[in-house]
C-alpha cells in the first residue's frame, strides 16, 4: 500500500499578473504535517504564490501544475480549493460593511444550522473566540472595519480555527502585532498545524510568510525557502537560512546557496 505523504506539490509553476510574469520555475513540495517558511525581500512574489495556490483569478498560471492531496487543482476555482482543505490568513484583508465577523465564523456551521435553526456560535467556537481575546460584542462588528492591526491578525487566525483547513497559508501573521499577541497567534498557528501532536502523527501542514522571522521563535518550521526575483533561490534549514540572511542579507544568503 502506498501512503500519500505529499499534501501540496507544485511543479515548474509560472504565474503572470496583468501579463507580467511574476513567478517562474517554482517547485515546492510539502508533506503532511510539515511547516515551511517562505522568506524573501518585498515584491519578490511571496504573496503572489499564496494567491496562485488559492486560485485567485488575477493570478494566471502559464506553466506547471499544482497538486493538492494528489489531485490536480491547477484549474479549480477558489471555492473548490477551499472546500478541499486550503485556508489562508491574509496580510491585509478587506473590510466589508455589514458583514460581521460572526457571519464568517458561522460559514462552516451554516449548512447544519439551517436545519437546526440555530443562529448563535457553537459553545466550542465561542471558547476559541474568547481564547483569541474577543468577546461577544466584538464578533458582531463588521469584519476588519476599524480593526487595529493586531485585531485583524487575531481575527484571521480565529476564522481559520473555525474553518479547520488541512493546509494553511499565513501571510505575515506577526506584522504589526505586539509581543504578547505574537505568542498568542503563534500558539494558535501551532494548533492549526497539529504541533501539539508528535511529528509522525501530524496531519496538517502550513506555509508561512514572515518578514522578521520573529514568530519562528514560537512556531517550529521544517524547511525554509528564499524567494528572489520570482524564483525559489534557496531552500534549507530555517535556522541556518535565517542566520545567513541576518548576517549576509538575502543576496548573500542566495549566493551562498548557489555556491554550495
Amino acid at each position, binding site marked *: 500500500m502506498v501512503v500519500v505523504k505529499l499534501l501540496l506539490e507544485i511543479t515548474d509553476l509560472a504565474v503572470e499578473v496583468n501579463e507580467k510574469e511574476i513567478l517562474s520555475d517554482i517547485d515546492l513540495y510539502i508533506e503532511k504535517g510539515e511547516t515551511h517558511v517562505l522568506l524573501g525581500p518585498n515584491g519578490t512574489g511571496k504573496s503572489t504564490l499564496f494567491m496562485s495556490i488559492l486560485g485567485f483569478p488575477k493570478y494566471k498560471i502559464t506553466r506547471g501544475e499544482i497538486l493538492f492531496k494528489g489531485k490536480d487543482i491547477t484549474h479549480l476555482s477558489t*471555492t473548490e480549493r*477551499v472546500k478541499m482543505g486550503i*485556508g489562508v490568513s*491574509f496580510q491585509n484583508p478587506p473590510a*466589508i460593511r455589514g458583514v*460581521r465577523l460572526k457571519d*464568517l465564523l458561522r*460559514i462552516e456551521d451554516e449548512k447544519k444550522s439551517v436545519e437546526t435553526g440555530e443562529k448563535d456560535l457553537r459553545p466550542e467556537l465561542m471558547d476559541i473566540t474568547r481564547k483569541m481575546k474577543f468577546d461577544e460584542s466584538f464578533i458582531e462588528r463588521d469584519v476588519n472595519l476599524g480593526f487595529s492591526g493586531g485585531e485583524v491578525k487575531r481575527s484571521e487566525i480565529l476564522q481559520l480555527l473555525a*474553518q479547520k483547513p488541512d493546509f494553511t497559508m499565513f501571510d505575515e501573521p506577526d506584522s504589526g502585532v505586539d509581543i504578547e499577541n505574537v505568542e498568542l497567534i503563534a500558539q494558535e498557528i501551532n494548533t492549526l498545524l497539529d504541533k501539539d501532536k508528535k511529528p509522525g502523527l501530524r496531519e496538517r501542514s502550513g506555509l508561512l510568510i514572515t518578514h522578521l522571522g520573529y514568530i519562528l521563535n514560537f512556531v517550529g518550521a521544517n524547511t525554509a525557502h528564499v524567494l528572489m526575483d520570482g524564483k525559489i533561490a534557496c531552500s534549507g534549514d530555517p535556522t541556518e537560512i535565517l542566520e545567513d540572511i541576518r548576517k549576509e542579507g538575502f543576496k548573500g544568503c542566495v549566493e551562498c546557496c548557489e555556491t554550495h
Partner: protein
Amino acid sequence: MLRNTLERAEKAKKKPAALGGDVDIEEFEQEEEGEHEKIESLQDLPKSYKDTVLKVGVDPTEQGRAGSFMQIDQSGVCSNCSSESIELMNMKDAFKKHSWLSDYMWNAVPVDADKYTAETELRNSNGYFIRALPGAKETFPIQACMFIGDKNVAQTAHNIIIAEENAELNIITGCSTGADVNSAMHVGVSEFYLKKGAKITFTMVHNWAEQVEVRPRTGIIMGDDSTYISNYILTSPVKGVQTYPTAYCQGKNSKAVFQSILGGQKNSVLDQGSRAYLTGKNSSAEMVTRAVSRDESQIYTRGHLAGKSQDVKGHLECMGLVLSDDSMIYSVPELEGSATNLELSHEAAVGKIAEEEVLYLMSRGLTEEEAASMIVRGFLSMDIKGLPPKLAAETKRMIDMSTRGM
C-alpha cells in the same frame, strides 16, 4: 377655508408631479368607503392577508403593539388601541371627535402640490389619525397597514400624525397588496406634526406588486427640540414609486433623520428623496441611503438639504451598488446654504461589488454567488439609529428578511 382648499384641489386636478412618471388616475377604479367589512382586530383577517402583512412588519397577532390600524382600498377596516396615551382611529371618526382637526389639514403638504394630493382631497379620502397625548411615553409601536385588496383600484389616504409636547411615538407602517392584485395605484398623504420636545419614529416597509404605481406625499412640521426619524425599506418589485418627504425643521434644536434602504428589481422605477428645510436655530438633518439595482431597475435617490439660518447642520449620504448593466442608480444630492455659519455636507458613491471582498469570502468557503449575496445583504443592512432597543432588533430582522431576496 374648506372651500378654498377644495378650489385649490380642483385647480390642481391635472397638475403633473414635479418628478416621476405621470400616472393617469382615471385608469384606475374608484372604490367607495365601506366596500370592505370592519373587523375588531387584525386576527380576524383571512390567513392569506395575515401572511402578506407579516412580511411588511405588521403583526396580525397584535402582540407587542400599542395599537393597530388597517385600511383596505378606501375602507378603514380596523383601528384599535390599547394605549391610554395614544389616540388611533380613522380620519372620519377623528373629524367627529376633534373639531380642531381641520386646522391640521394640508399644512405640511400643500393640497395643490400635484394631481395626486388634489385627488386625495377631492375624493374625501379616509386614512389614519394618530395622536400621542402630551408626555406620552409609549414604547410599543402603533402599526398601520395600507392594503390594496381589489384589482386595479386607486387607493387614496390622508393621514394625520400628531405628537403633542414631550410625547414619544413609534409607528410601523406596512404597505402591501393582495395576492391576486397586480395592477393598482396608491396615493398616501401623511402630515406629521411634532410639538415641543416630541419624538416620532416612523418605520415603513413597502411590498407592492409589479404593476403598482405608488405616490406617497409626506410633510413633517417640527417644533422646538423635536426629533423625527424615518426608516424606509423597499426591496421588492413595483412599477413605480415616487416620493420626496419633506421635513420643516422650524423649531430650535429640531432634528430630522431619514434612513432608506432601496432594492431595485425587475423593471422597478424607484424615485426616492428626502428634503429638510433647516430654519430653526441649531436644527439639523441627516439622510442615509443604501441602494442596490438589479435587472432593469432604475433608482433615483435624491436628497436636498436647505440651510436657511445660522447654526444649522446637515449631512447626506448615499451609497449605491449597480449589479446589472441594464439597471441604473442616479444619485442627486443637493446642498443649499443661504445663511452664514452653517455646515452642510454630502457623500455619494455608486459602484460595483469589490472583487477583493468577494474573493475574501470565497477563501472562507463561500461560492462566488454566496459571497456576492452576503456582501449585498451586508451593504443594505445599515444600522438603524434612534429606535427603542426592541423595535430596533425587530427592524433589523425585518431588513434581513427584506434583503434576503436581493
